[in-house]
């Protein structure tokens, strides 16, 4: 009797473990941020100001997540922590369960920095070639040509980046992020500073990647950017996440849908805090 009980318990325990492990693997987040805090000082004699005040966020595999907030809210700082450019003072950031500093984690991501500035002496092709090598892609000429075509720069492949326009730079930056078909794309303000056609092109690229099942995390300070492409959005104000959810749900709470920037909306809501 006792023996049967014991074996049953053991079997149950093993089963639970398997189930928990299964859930764990299944649900392994593309990005997980746990209570991230970070302070900066502008000058060494100044007091530190806390820029991120405990950011907690989970990005699920396959989703397109819009990280929205006004200028200075802490979006770029958060993204720098995710990509390992800076470290949090406290809290933990992981990419697919791994530390951002690990090579395995970075093998799986593509990153477009905010208002990127690239090696201007390189041609578009050379630029992608170098980033392909850095992503451990050798003999990647075919992939590079395909990417140049996808972002509409195949005719500028032999032009030095110094004579690229703002929109072209943004597109070559995205092409660089797409090398090696990463599982997770992290784009910091990919639509800022572009004309309507440029914005449309980049949005289409994001949607294409979404169809392929790529997880996409992008930031913006303009709400309508998010509408067409996002599964979920998070709204960050002054270093804190104020709202997370489906955009349609949040819109019911009175977010603006017209072409005004989130800025104005934020201004109103910062004045009467506690919208949730």
């Amino acid at each position: 009797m006792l023996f049967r009980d014991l074996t049953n318990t053991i079997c149950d325990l093993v089963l639970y473990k398997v189930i928990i492990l299964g859930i764990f693997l299944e649900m392994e987040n593309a990005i997980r941020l746990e209570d991230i805090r970070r302070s900066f000082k502008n000058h060494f004699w100044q007091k530190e100001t806390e820029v991120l005040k405990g950011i907690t966020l989970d990005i699920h595999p396959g989703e397109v997540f819009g990280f929205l907030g006004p200028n200075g809210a802490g979006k770029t700082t958060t993204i720098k922590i995710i990509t390992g450019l800076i470290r949090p003072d406290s809290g933990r950031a992981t990419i697919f369960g791994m530390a951002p500093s690990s090579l395995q984690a970075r093998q799986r991501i593509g990153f477009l920095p905010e208002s990127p500035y690239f090696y201007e002496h390189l041609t578009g092709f050379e630029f992608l070639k170098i980033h392909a090598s850095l992503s451990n892609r050798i003999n990647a000429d075919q992939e590079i040509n395909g990417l140049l075509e996808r972002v509409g720069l195949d005719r500028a492949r032999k032009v030095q980046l110094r004579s690229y326009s703002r929109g072209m730079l943004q597109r070559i930056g995205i092409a660089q992020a797409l090398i090696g078909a990463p599982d997770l794309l992290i784009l910091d303000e990919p639509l800022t500073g572009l004309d309507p056609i440029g914005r449309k092109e980049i949005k289409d690229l994001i949607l294409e990647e979404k169809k392929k099942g790529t997880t996409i995390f992008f930031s913006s300070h303009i709400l309508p950017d998010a509408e067409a492409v996002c599964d979920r959005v998070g709204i960050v104000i002054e270093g804190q996440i104020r709202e997370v959810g489906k955009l349609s749900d949040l819109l019911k709470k009175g977010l603006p849908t017209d072409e005004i920037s989130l800025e104005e909306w934020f201004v109103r809501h910062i004045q009467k805090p506690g919208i949730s």
Partner: protein
Amino acid sequence: MHRIKAIIENTFKEGLRQRILLLLIVFTLLLIVMSVFLEPFALGESPKIMRDLGLAAASLFGVLTTIIVGSALIHKDIEKRTLYTVLAKPVRRSEIVLGKFLGLGALVCLLVLAMLLIHQLVIFLYEGSFDFHLLIAFPFTILEVGVMLGILLLFSSFSSTTLTSIMGVIFFVIGHALPDLKLFAETTKAPALKHIAYAFYYVLPNLDNFNFRMDLAYKAPLPTDQLIFSICYGIMYTVFLLYVTTLIFERREFK
């Protein structure tokens, strides 16, 4: 390997496409050619000044190129954030440091060699024969460049680019003034000063260790033990600088 290679190639190309490089090259060529015209004024020393000045010009060119082009590249990488996309790729920070070092090092190597060969050509045109003995200066100039590059990378790994270029110049000047410091240490009466002077003398990079130009110009027998010491000193100092740079750079944040 392919990752370091990519960084080496990029650094090399980027350095080569800096406009300031042209200015440095023209300036050095002028110095080399000018040395010919100084020959008649050098009285008894006649065949020497052309040699000494030419070698000095090539060496100065190497160091100046290292400091100026090196600072320019580092400035772009850090202040203008060209490095961000690189850092997000699965590449080690040590690979970036090594790639920068080798890329710039290779560029300066080639250019210094070109200058020395032009110097040979000038000697040939003036005297009717080459003086290949002088090329022994080449590896030692490169060792000096290596140490300077190490210093630049070290400072860039934690400080601003302005400070990096300033420190580059300061270390270059101090590095060549260290024999004077030693002299001071030997002669000073104050024991405290003596110890401090000696400490600095032994810790700071002594760039004069790589200078055999006088011996070469005057065709004096080369001090073999000093040559060997110089090679070991240069390699060890550079490796040490790169190692410390990597340790710091791995911790560096990109705010």
